[in-house]
């Protein structure tokens, strides 16, 4: 068990999210920074589908009631284990009674805390992810609060070496200024040439309306040349909708499964984590990509994860 000592309602149990239930109106949910979650689980040798804690409200503190290995990835934030400072993207052994403390990030928005064996929240519709908007999944369908006790799954054999091990961040992590890559979506041709040019040329600012459901951006107004009402249709995380206000919203992990607003583009899957780590006021830019680039970027991330998983296994075995 781990005991939550200090938390905010935005901190929740998350995994890779739900597949196969969109047609019941069930959002994907899951980690907003998927590579960070994956890295934390890989360092510990957990199942790729293991659940961890997504921390978006700080400071965050928890106590280990029994010894366990812990990995902390994602946003850069001062992290201490019973006083000892942990490097970024690091995994180490915690003893019973140890306290993990995470200060507000200096870069990014969300930190992932994985524990050996994973957080053993009940499987619901194929996942342990919390759906905060609708109140199900994860730990009692809600964000974590002080006093919560989270059970852990069975731990694999093997211990981390003294001092712990770290992960090289995933591809593209070091270049914060790189544009988010897009594929054009269904209504792309219906936007005026000006709107399309502005969309990829402008500096967009993340507004305060940014949560697990979506992220509203501030910038130039995008005018749709052709006005027609769309019928409701399925949407995925990454969909960039343009409501009548002309200000885009990027749909994220807890996006409604269907929508009716025009879609100008979709942020490619491999770049979605950037929005999970965006803070209100952050600036970002977009660039068009090809399908091949979008798939190659996903494969690059998958290869990085495979290498990390193998390397971490060597250290745990020794």
């Amino acid at each position, binding site marked *: 068990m781990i005991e939550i000592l200090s938390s905010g309602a935005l901190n929740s149990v998350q995994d890779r999210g739900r597949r196969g239930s*969109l*047609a019941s*109106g069930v*959002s994907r949910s899951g980690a907003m920074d998927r590579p960070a979650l994956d890295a934390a689980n890989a360092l510990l040798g957990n199942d790729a589908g293991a659940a961890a804690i997504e921390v978006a409200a700080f400071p965050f503190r928890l106590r280990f009631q029994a010894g366990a290995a812990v990995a902390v990835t994602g946003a850069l934030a001062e992290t201490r284990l019973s006083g000892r400072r942990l490097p970024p993207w690091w995994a180490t052994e915690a003893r019973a009674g140890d306290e993990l403390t995470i200060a507000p990030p200096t870069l990014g928005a969300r930190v992932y805390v994985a524990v050996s064996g994973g957080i053993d929240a009940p499987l619901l519709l194929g996942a342990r992810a919390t759906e905060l908007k609708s109140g199900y999944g994860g730990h009692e369908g809600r964000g974590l609060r002080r006093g919560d006790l989270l059970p852990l799954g069975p731990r694999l054999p093997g211990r981390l070496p003294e001092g712990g091990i770290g992960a090289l961040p995933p591809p593209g992590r070091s270049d914060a200024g790189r544009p988010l890559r897009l594929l054009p*979506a269904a209504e792309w041709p219906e936007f005026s040439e000006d709107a399309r040019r502005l969309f990829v040329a402008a500096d967009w600012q993340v507004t305060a309306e940014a949560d697990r459901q979506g992220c509203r951006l501030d910038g130039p107004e995008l005018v749709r040349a052709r006005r027609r009402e769309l019928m409701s249709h399925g*949407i995925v995380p990454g969909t960039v909708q343009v409501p009548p206000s002309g200000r885009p919203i990027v749909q994220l992990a807890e996006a409604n499964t*269907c929508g009716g607003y025009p879609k100008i583009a979709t942020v490619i899957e491999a770049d979605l984590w950037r929005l999970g780590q965006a803070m209100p006021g952050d600036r970002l830019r977009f660039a068009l990509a090809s399908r091949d680039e979008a*798939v190659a970027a996903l494969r690059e991330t998958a290869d990085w994860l495979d290498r990390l998983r193998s390397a971490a296994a060597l250290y745990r075995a020794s």
Partner: protein
Amino acid sequence: MADDFILSEAGAGALLLDVAAGAFDEDRQARLLALADSLSGADGIEDVVPGMNNLMVAFDPLAVEAGEITRRLVDGWRTAVATARAGCEHRIDVVYGGPDLTDFAAGLGLAVDEVIGRHAGAVYRVAAIGAMPGFPYLSGLDPALSAPRRAVPRAGVPKGAVIVGGGQAGIMPITAPSGWHILGHTDFTLFDPHRVRPATLAAGDVVRFVVAGVER
């Protein structure tokens, strides 16, 4: 024959087949649902999501090529036959009333009783489930009850609210924002995440509303 659909990408891992031709079409929807059934569970496919005269397929682009999904969607649509899904029929008790009913009727130039009669008199079909957990998009609304959505959406339309918007009808599965008009309330459970099939209604099902009371 010119193609009667538009296929678009929704990122590297999803495709949207849009077969809309003007107003919502029941026959096309039945063909789409047959196509959806034929795709569900296929290799690499993660989600098959019927919308209103459209169908989204989400897949793992590292496990299956988009071209293969495209081929299955396009060929599938061309050959899909409108076989009625063996849908269930649901009778849903409604207590009519609430904050919008009187104004909604007045806006249409109808008496409240006529709105209730027309709403409860129609036979609805679940076109799709989505947006919210278990939310049914119902087709079959009496055209006399078709009215634009509220200019300003309500921040919290309560769970169980029986609503209409544009030419569609629905029921709120959870309390959430909506711009649709509230005509009444039901205790019918639309969603329970602890069931294997969490949504009570399914696309293709038939719904009838029954007047269980009127609050004035």
